[in-house]
């Protein structure tokens, strides 16, 4: 134990740089994933069969192929085909973004469809344009429904970042692996890694809970301060459904 931690604290700058790569990959991957979630989610609700089809094919492709293989393909196969080498971080952001964007598009599509139809009808009756209906009425209500599943996907994305190790990006896992190799302290190295990922994941959960609370307050639903500390659970998902059902019926 002593060996590992003295090495760990002597090489804190390495830890920080590994942590930074992990955070970078998570945040950039999440931004790409969010953008793609909305793009494919809206496309899936399009009136045009071709647009729906394109979205369907892309989503199914990225959901149906392994993230692990996608990373390998981008990093090792892409340069052979196009004689252009991508940086490991770039490959990671693209693969995470596409993969979780594919899952996220289902979240967006589902949440848009879950807004009661009467809301759309009222917006038509008030003569709003299609864009106004979406932006002012449907999206603010759907957004609240999207946050809990988005939180799950974000945490999953974070937990997928150790795959970067396989394509030589020096992320947190890579750095701690190296320390384990130097010190031979397998137990403590991996325990440290577990704790660090847990802290990262929990910080993300808190952040997303705050976001959810903010969005709910705008819909006139109030949440207790205690629920902020709670990890995503079946209970809160259930509560969201109940709130939606009662909200819809007036």
């Amino acid at each position, binding site marked *: 134990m002593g060996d590992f931690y003295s090495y760990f604290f002597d090489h804190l700058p390495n830890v920080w740089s590994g942590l930074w790569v992990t955070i970078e990959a998570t945040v950039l991957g999440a931004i790409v994933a969010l953008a793609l979630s909305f793009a494919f989610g809206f496309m899936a609700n399009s009136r045009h069969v071709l647009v729906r089809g394109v979205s369907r094919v892309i989503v199914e492709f990225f959901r149906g192929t392994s993230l692990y293989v996608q990373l390998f393909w981008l990093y090792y196969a892409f340069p052979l085909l196009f004689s252009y080498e991508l940086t490991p971080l770039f490959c990671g952001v693209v693969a995470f973004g596409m993969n979780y964007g594919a899952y996220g598009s289902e979240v967006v599509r589902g949440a848009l469809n879950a807004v*009661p139809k*009467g809301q759309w009808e009222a917006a038509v009756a008030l*003569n709003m*344009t299609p864009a*106004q209906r979406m932006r002012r009425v449907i999206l603010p*209500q759907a957004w609240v429904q999207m946050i809990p599943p988005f939180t799950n996907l974000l945490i999953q994305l974070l937990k997928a970042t150790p795959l970067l190790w396989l394509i030589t990006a020096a992320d947190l896992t890579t750095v701690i692996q190296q320390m384990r190799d130097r010190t031979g302290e397998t137990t403590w190295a991996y325990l440290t890694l577990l704790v660090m990922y847990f802290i990262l994941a929990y910080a993300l959960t808190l952040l997303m809970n705050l976001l959810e609370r903010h969005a709910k307050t705008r*819909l*006139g639903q109030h949440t207790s301060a205690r629920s902020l500390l709670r990890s995503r659970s079946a209970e809160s998902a259930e509560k969201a459904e109940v709130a939606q059902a009662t909200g819809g019926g*007036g």
Partner: protein
Amino acid sequence: MATDPLQKTNPEDRAPETAAGHLVVFDQVVKRYGDHVVLDHLDFTVERGQHVTLIGPSGSGKTTILRLLMTLERISGGLIMVSGKPLSHMAGPGGSLKPASEKYQREIRKKIGMVFQQFNLFPNMNVLQNITESPVNVLGMDRAEAEERAEELLDMVGLREKITAHPTQLSGGQQQRVAIARALAMRPEILLLDEVTSALDPELVAGVLDLLREIARTTDITMLCVTHEMNFARDISDQVLMFDSGRVIESGPPEKLFGDPDHERTREFLSAVL
């Protein structure tokens, strides 16, 4: 009422009437869902300023008429005219009619407002925002002016003190009164009322109906109501249409229709609901 927020429309501002002078014309209107025929070659007309009530058994197509007028449903056949213009059709090549574009529909929809059974207030906005959203963003009204008018309308519906409340903080009756104010804020010429008291607790019904009577009495808005409240229908209507199986089987002034209906089916229906 101290102020009259509804200000009768200036006659000069009005669109020219159709040759026959009808505000709304249903001409051989058909609405089908798959094989199920809801409206079967329906003909009727509504005159400007009239209060028309649609009565009849559930599933007879009354609500579908309002939903067609609000362009929430697509027409399957026939023609609906509002102020002499086709509602869901526009001029196509060679004088033919083709389905209306969104832009065309928005132009004609300006004249029409609707109040729903389930209120459908926007939960992401407070009462004031619900009322001012479309006057500001659709009609392009100045925000201060829209808010002033919203306050007048809230005075009229008796909910001035709820101006910053969220829809979730209001009772059903209060929500419906806000929904009525919201519809009136768009200054519609035609107001569609779709079973507006059906989702309310019994003790809240009277307040909403009194408000609608007041609106019917003090404004020149043309009203089309679908209702199961026969006393209300008798009070406000100039014309009552009795529906059955997608057709008007009898129509007339309320005294005649409620007092001495011609049709056996009407008599049966009235004795069941009165």
